[in-house]
């Protein structure tokens, strides 16, 4: 509303956020789980007869870990931030202004964990065992706290709890209902990743017995997740808004004109990946001798797909909000949406970012689409509006905009009849149809003529009479 909408054709700004996020989430969790792995492996190696050899291998692990997490992890992390500024400035601004010092604290964690990681890695050969172990431990603890912080902000977006614009209590928002289950799930998941990543590095070891030793050590990291995540998921599930729950359940049979609803599909993607990771790890545990690099990378990539499923689920679970019950995905404030006058005023009067176009022209519809729809829908790409409005008539759209909010996945429409007509005409034109806003208004004229409403009134009154 207040900000321009970054109108990226075909991809759409939402998908760009998703792509960066999916890459980042896997790496950022690995960055913590791997830290834990390094720490525990240090301790373990101290108690092993061939500890030196293990540490040689651990250096291998650390090298790949360092490059992978710092280059791709850190940069994509900033990338998400960049992308959400562009995709939804209003929400980003709110989050930043509410949580700026939470983020600043997280940044202190970044600075510390990064520096410690470098001290750990570059001091490898010279540092005493105790210092190395301490550094690894410190790295793990500090990086886990960075997760602790960002987890609060992320869960806030889906379940703000008792936080409200009127009473913006940061701690209520931070320790929201979803906070704890999500934090625990993420923690177990990151251990799992630490183990899977180690399997990849281990599969490069040529010496059979040693490889087997490492693998037996690594597969154990999957066990906690395998046991507890199902229960934690149930807990997390119980904290979800019930609109979300219905969406997923209905999705199984395909609501909204068929097609298994996207949110359900992605939910099942996440579940499937979880199951297959456990199976795969079990197989590796049974036959540690035969791991292949391709296979272990495959196993790790399953986790990547799991993240993809979970992330799309999390994104869609917020529909139609970006911050649940506070701000709609298209930057319409919930509180404004309750104000009928605000909603009914001609959109062009409110829109700051339209270049003074004349009403009922095609541009009118186009700019309505850009400013109200383009934050989620592209014309013919991701969440294509064309495929969603294929067999629309101008009048249908005109009427549907009034009720679309009731579907539970769309924000309410802002604007008057002219706006609805203009947008509907634009969407029809995108599908190659030809109808102008005026024609639509003419067609629907009779329904709105005072005569009609009058007769309706009579009928109802007639019924009242005994």
């Amino acid at each position, binding site marked *: 509303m207040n900000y321009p909408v970054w109108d990226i054709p075909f991809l759409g700004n939402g998908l760009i956020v998703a792509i960066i996020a999916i890459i980042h989430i896997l790496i950022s969790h690995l960055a913590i789980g791997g830290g834990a792995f390094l720490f525990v492996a240090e301790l373990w190696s101290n108690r092993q007869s061939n500890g030196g050899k293990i540490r040689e291998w651990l250096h291998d692990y650390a090298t790949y870990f360092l490059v992978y997490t710092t280059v791709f992890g850190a940069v994509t992390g900033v990338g998400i931030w960049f992308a959400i500024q562009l995709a939804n400035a209003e929400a980003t601004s709110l989050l930043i202004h509410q949580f700026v010092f939470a983020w600043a604290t997280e940044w202190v964690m970044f600075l510390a964990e990064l520096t410690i990681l470098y001290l750990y890695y570059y001091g490898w050969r010279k540092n005493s065992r105790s210092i190395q172990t301490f550094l690894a431990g410190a790295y793990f603890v500090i990086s886990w706290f960075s997760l602790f912080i960002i987890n609060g902000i992320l869960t806030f977006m889906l379940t703000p709890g008792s936080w409200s614009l009127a009473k913006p209590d940061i701690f209520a928002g931070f320790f929201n209902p979803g906070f704890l289950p999500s934090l625990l799930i993420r923690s177990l998941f990151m251990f799992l990743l630490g183990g899977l990543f180690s399997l990849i590095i281990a599969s490069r070891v040529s010496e059979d017995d040693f490889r087997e030793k490492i693998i037996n050590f690594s597969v154990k990291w999957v066990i906690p997740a395998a046991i507890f995540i199902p229960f934690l998921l149930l807990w997390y599930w119980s904290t979800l808004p019930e609109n979300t729950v219905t969406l997923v359940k209905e999705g199984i049979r395909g609501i909204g004109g068929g097609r298994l609803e996207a949110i359900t*599909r992605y939910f099942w*993607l996440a579940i*499937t990946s979880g199951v297959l990771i456990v199976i795969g790890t079990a197989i590796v545990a049974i036959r540690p*001798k*035969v791991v292949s690099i391709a296979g*272990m990378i495959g196993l790790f990539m399953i986790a990547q797909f799991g993240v993809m499923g979970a992330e799309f689920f999390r994104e869609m679970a917020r529909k139609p909000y970006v911050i649940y019950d506070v701000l709609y995905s298209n930057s319409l404030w919930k509180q404004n949406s309750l104000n009928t006058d605000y909603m009914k005023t001609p959109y062009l009067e409110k829109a700051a970012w339209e270049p003074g176009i004349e009403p009922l022209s095609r541009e009118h519809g186009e700019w309505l689409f850009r400013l109200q729809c383009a934050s989620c829908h592209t014309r013919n790409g991701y969440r294509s509006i064309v495929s969603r409005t294929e067999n629309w008539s101008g009048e249908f759209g005109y009427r549907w905009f009034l009720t679309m909010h009731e579907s539970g996945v769309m924000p309410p429409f802002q604007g008057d009849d002219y706006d609805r007509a203009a947008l509907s005409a634009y969407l029809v034109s995108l599908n190659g149809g030809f109808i102008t806003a005026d024609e639509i208004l003419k067609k629907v004229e009779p329904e709105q003529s005072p005569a009609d409403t009058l007769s309706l009134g009579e009928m109802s009154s007639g019924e009242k009479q005994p």
Partner: protein
Amino acid sequence: MTYYSILPDAESRLHDHSKLFGKVSRYILRRYPVWPMIDHLANKVVPVHKHSVWYNIGGIALFFFSVQIITGVLLMIYYRPGLPWDSIQRIVMEVPFGNMIRSIHHWSANLMVFTLFVHMFSTFFMKAYRRPREFTWLVGAVLMGMTLIFGFSGYLLPWDDLSFFATRVGMSEIEKAPLIGMWLADIVRGGSDVTIDTIGRFYVLHVMVLPLLTLAAIGVHLFFIQVQGVSEPDSFASLPESRKRYRKYFTEFIFAEIPVWLFLGVLLVALSAAFPRELMPEADPFSSAPEGIKPEWYFLAQYQLLKFFPGKLEMVGLILLLLLPLGILVVPFIDRAIPANSRGRLVNRIGIIALLGLIVYTLWGWLS
């Protein structure tokens, strides 16, 4: 009643008596003494070299095929050849997870075709078709052909306007085949045009005839491989015995591949989550054809090539098309020298040209 005794050397390789697994295996082996087979299989090895990765592709294709069987059977439960479109519509709209099963079937089919192409070309460039493996190669070629027919017949079954007109176009290409063209097309269609009768034929072909034939052919293909062992590329064969490294086929090679299959399983779910198979409006044999009629990608190359031979010239195009399968069939008998001689290298070059041509034309047809 008499039991066969278990050979002592075999006994030594069994799990000990206490373990359940050991008990069961003894129980069975006393009755069915299949030791010779087990020994034979257990001694199977796969050479380890920098091209070994290509040995996995066949297994991957097999994985996709098994996915096809499972999802296919599930789809058959609701599919009605009498009401093709409506029953698919029901699967998509009403049956829980119907669309996911259908999408997985769709994606697995495409990936299977793709994998087979990779498998075929990798075997080709590793020259695995040479004596004594000519017939393993030929059976493989037959499998490739049957898979393409699988795709073609399955594409019609939803009976939406895209698949209807695409099939009509495809059949009209068959019609153009010299001499038998018309006759063949009519037999396949069960008439001079694609009708509901055609569904009957394609359905039986797709869910009955082809699966049986394919399973049989796969059996033969694998049997040959088990008898002869995996082929070794010249670079490996020329090594001194001391420097040749091998892995056990079943206990190591297959095991190492399982995680890859799991990954592909997730890939299928991910693809069908991100790109579920759409169902177009029901086919109407009388209305004008919709825009953007194109065959599946694995027929695009032929389709694109034929565009260059309009009208009378079409015959030339068809003959050109026949060259590729023909070459595949005869190559084991014209290029036999081990290690490869000048002719072998020539064949390789031709193969590269064919591959590039295939890729270029497919992309071209896809973009145009």
